[in-house]
């Protein structure tokens, strides 16, 4: 994790705007590969498997590769997002509390 600090451009991660791109693109990044894999499997099933044509086996293999490859990386990505969101909400709550106490202190 320490390497990453040097590896990536430092941005203010407490700023929601920065993370917004990531959150907005997440459904696309996850759903599109699943759709493509599903489409290829469907193609293989209709044109290959049900007609006993082996030429479509390549499509099935590609679909499995896309599916497995994506799921393999989607799981840690989504869990890191959930973790981030949890900590961010904790941060927001605490900042709010701090503001309240400061106001109270002033009064």
């Amino acid at each position, binding site marked *: *994790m320490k*390497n*990453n*600090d*040097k*590896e*990536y*451009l430092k*941005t203010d*991660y*407490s700023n929601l705007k*920065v*993370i917004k*791109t*990531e959150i907005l693109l997440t459904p*696309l*990044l*996850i759903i*599109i*590969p699943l*759709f*493509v*894999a599903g*489409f*290829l499997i469907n*193609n293989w099933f209709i*044109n290959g498997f049900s007609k006993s044509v082996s*030429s*479509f*086996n*390549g*499509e099935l*293999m*590609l679909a499995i*590769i*896309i599916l497995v*490859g*994506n799921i*393999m*990386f*989607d799981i*840690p*990505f989504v869990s*890191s*997002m959930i*973790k*981030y969101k949890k*900590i*961010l909400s*904790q*941060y927001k709550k*605490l*900042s709010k*509390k*701090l503001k309240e*106490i*400061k106001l*109270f*202190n002033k009064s």
Partner: protein
Amino acid sequence: MVNVKDVKQRLEEVKKKLDETTKKINTIDFDAHWYRRVFHVFGASFIFYYVLPNANWVNLLDWINILKIWVPVSIVIIIVLLEILRLKGKINSDHFFGLRTYEKKRAGSYVFFAVAIVILFLFFPQQIAIPCILCACLADPIMGEIRYRFGEKQAYIVGFIACMFFFIVTWFKADFSLMILVSVVGAIGAVVGEAKKFWWLDDDFMIQMLPAILILIIWFGAPCLGLNPPVEPIIYPSVISW
């Protein structure tokens, strides 16, 4: 009556917790790391391009030609223009999530990735393009993860095996000896493309183009050795009348 001491103590506690949470947030730079990885593997879905009906280079204004030739080219042009604006400082790098530090003054790897994919789509047969795209989209992040956790040597070994697997899967319709030759040469090309780092040329470009060029040479040279490259495509284009 409110005790001032209690309030101060509470304030200190909240401040301490806030500092701890800020520290935690900063350690989740890892997020950018997984974001890049997911973006990489997402690229594998671009092979959907081959499901679209075949384009022809005769009537370039046909709908299918617009979709298969002009749209990818336009997307790459837009990406390049955005990158030029970012490098000139007209667009802040903060808008580009997950950029690496060395990409601040150099074109981002996604530009190289996109350019290489479009070159493969337009100028290479799908039997060459698909495994090369899979190498960049899947073998590259796998190698990255292995390197990150176990070391350089292990990363190259796993990367070589993964790339070989992609070439075997996509060339299974070819002669056995040709399939082995292509998968070994392709895997070596991909691993060398990934390993050889240039400041001005990203590995995302090299991992796709180096094996593609090597296999293209085999593709044209194979008939001289009495071997036939696979004529059948891996993905059959849809038949839609446009």
